[in-house]
């Protein structure tokens, strides 16, 4: 099995679940004797592979990231062009590789950014195309003002793909309902997690994610405000960066809780692990969450998690608490309960960690191989 996988980010650099997924998946595929060629933009971080079956090939340079919006200031008008440019470079690189070393059995893309390249390779060489959807434009826009340009790319990719992998049934339904794709073409493969060690727990309630409309940090702050009326010694941490950061800081000042909320900005990989480990509660109030690997990461560190009811991971996961993202009374009720009732905290922590054991990249690789075998 020879796979051309087209990605956008790979540890040590990561902006979201896409990097974590590509890292876990490519390594486990390599362990299962698939030959994986992972194409990605050249960065200063220099990702590398210690596995014989896994080659990381850097292609040109790119100034954009998977979660960028065309209105981001730094790139403005060049956004669309940059996407097309990178995709063309990748397609050319893969086609050279095909000429020199023979065809791939499958070409596998992740999300909208690299779909164009996948389609080009498929059309040029007849290689079957597999597409994993980690999030759609509807998710990233919080279902408020989705951008048609992204939707069109996504729709074209989904239509031309031979098979689609969705990270949850939630996402599968979006692909069927909003993009008009036949459900028979879509397989659901839930993500996995590399467990994180538990630290010395403190009275910290954690939000960790991009500070965008999708992730719902403002609901976290509203709940924090309610919690502090009853549990005034609690500390709240908002970890991450994004276009909503200034607004969120103002919100905490307006509510008069800025002394209890810490905005950390973007954290390094080690800092992320540390904060998961020492937090008592993790809250994921996403407006739209196709999967939510961060919840599994927090749970693996023994941190009980309160997640949006619709979050994709919770379809397949029992030992967490669920709320509607807008129901900040109930969110606060559950945060306070976790802080007050040790038996609840202990049980969720231990049962959650037990359940995490099922979510391995080995399983994700097996299911992905099933999909590959189905299109060859």
């Amino acid at each position, binding site marked *: 099995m020879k796979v051309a996988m087209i990605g956008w980010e790979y540890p040590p650099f990561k902006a979201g679940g896409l990097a974590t997924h590509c890292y876990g998946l490519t390594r486990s595929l390599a362990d299962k004797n698939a030959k994986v060629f992972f194409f990605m933009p050249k960065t200063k971080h220099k990702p590398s592979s210690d596995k014989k079956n896994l080659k990381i090939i850097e292609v040109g340079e790119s100034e954009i990231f998977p979660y960028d919006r065309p209105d981001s200031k730094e790139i403005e008008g060049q956004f669309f062009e940059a996407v097309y440019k990178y995709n063309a470079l990748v397609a050319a690189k893969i086609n050279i590789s095909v000429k020199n070393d023979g065809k791939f059995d499958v070409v596998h893309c992740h999300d909208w950014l690299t779909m164009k390249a996948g389609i080009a390779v498929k059309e040029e060489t007849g290689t079957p195309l597999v597409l994993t959807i980690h999030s759609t434009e509807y998710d990233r826009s919080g279902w408020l003002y989705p951008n048609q340009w992204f939707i069109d790319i996504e729709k074209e990719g989904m239509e031309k793909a031979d098979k689609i992998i969705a990270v949850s049934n939630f996402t599968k339904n979006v692909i069927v309902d909003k993009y008009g794709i036949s459900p028979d073409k879509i397989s659901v493969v839930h993500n996995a997690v590399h467990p994180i060690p538990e630290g010395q727990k403190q009275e910290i309630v954690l939000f960790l994610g991009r500070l965008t409309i999708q992730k719902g940090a403002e609901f976290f702050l509203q709940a924090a405000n309610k919690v502090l009326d009853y549990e005034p010694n609690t500390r709240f941490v908002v970890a991450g960066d994004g276009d909503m950061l200034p607004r969120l800081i103002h919100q905490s000042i307006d509510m008069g809780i800025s002394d209890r909320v810490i905005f950390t900005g973007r954290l390094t990989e080690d800092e992320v692990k540390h904060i998961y480990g020492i937090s008592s509660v993790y809250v994921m109030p996403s407006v739209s969450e196709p999967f939510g690997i961060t919840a599994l990461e927090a749970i693996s560190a023994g941190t009980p998690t309160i997640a949006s009811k619709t979050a994709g991971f919770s379809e397949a996961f029992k030992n967490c*608490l669920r709320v509607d993202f807008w129901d900040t*009374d109930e969110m606060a*009720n559950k945060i306070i*309960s976790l802080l*007050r009732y*040790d038996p609840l905290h202990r049980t969720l922590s231990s049962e959650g960690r037990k359940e995490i054991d099922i979510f391995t990249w080995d399983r994700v690789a097996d299911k992905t191989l099933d999909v590959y075998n189905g299109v060859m």
Partner: protein
Amino acid sequence: MTSICMYFEVHQPMRLNHFSVFNIGDHNDPKTSYFDEKLNREIFEKVARKCYLPTNNLLLELIRKHDGEFRVSFSLTGTFVEYCERYMPEVLDSFKELFKTGSVDMIEETYYHSLSALYDDMDEFEDQVKMHNQMIRRVFNYRPRVFRNTEAIFDNRIAKKVADMGYKGIITEGTDKILNRRSPNYLYRPVNADIKVLLRNYTLSDDVGFRFSAKQWPGYPLTADKYAQWMSHCEGDLVNLFMDYETFGEHHWEDTGIFTFLEHLPSEVFKQNYLDFVTVSEAVERYVPVGEIDAPWAISWADEDRDVSTWLGNDMQHSCFNELKEIGRKLRGDGHKDLLHTWRLLQTSDHLYYCSTKGMEDGAVHAYFSHYDDPYEGFINFMNILQDFKQKIN
């Protein structure tokens, strides 16, 4: 002659309202009642229509058709009878009608379907049994002779207490933990008490209670004649078929054929030689114990484990149970009648059952019986109410 002894458990808990930490201590708001009147009424009326009324009617017909030779026993909890009296008195009337036939026996249990038998001292348990006794006397003018504890929870201490209270028989699970490969189809005697123990034949009981509509089960479809033949092959004095009454029409809906099965069961049983029906009181009068059983640790009829881990299997359940006991220590003897009743409604074992985190097959059964999304919701709600209640009595 082998006798078939059928007993049905009839219980409904008083389910709790959504009660958040913000409601704790807010005693002026009448909306912060502990019990969800609307949900409770809806569920009760639904189950009454699907199960209690049609099954009672069918049993009445069958008893008359077979001249009283078809005999069954019931255990009605106090909370169930309160539901009947509050919402649908006709349900209780139909139980009275059945009882009047003389072919129906009534069993004693704790009024509140509680775990009070597991408290450090047994005063509360005794009070709740006496309350149940008075309720049965009031409604049916009858004194039960056979006792069954909540979910058939049983150990030597409980056996001794129940024997001391004058009961002739006690019901529990025919689990191998106490039988050690002996047959459940006989009466036994506890090592430490003078009382006869009736043991549930869990294989045959669960064939109806759990497996009746399971299409992948080799016994499917279960017909009355097949089942009567299985029972005719049983050795022993007594086949005890104990199950939730909601088996008929609620756990298995009408379209599974469960009522047709029940309708034909007596006549198919009478076709077999050497089979008849007895009530629980008749069983303990007619037969003698063949051996001793020793239960130093509590067993029950619940889940695969057949112990009390269903209600006391995790930290959350332990802490609620301890809170309940703690409240009791303060409240008992205080004379606060309304608070006492509320405390006792909170002791109903179902509230702890909803907090169970058991996985796999049992977990699916638990989810079916729970109105919470998960055990953690159940715990938060129950614990918030217990915290509020503690403030009320202080």
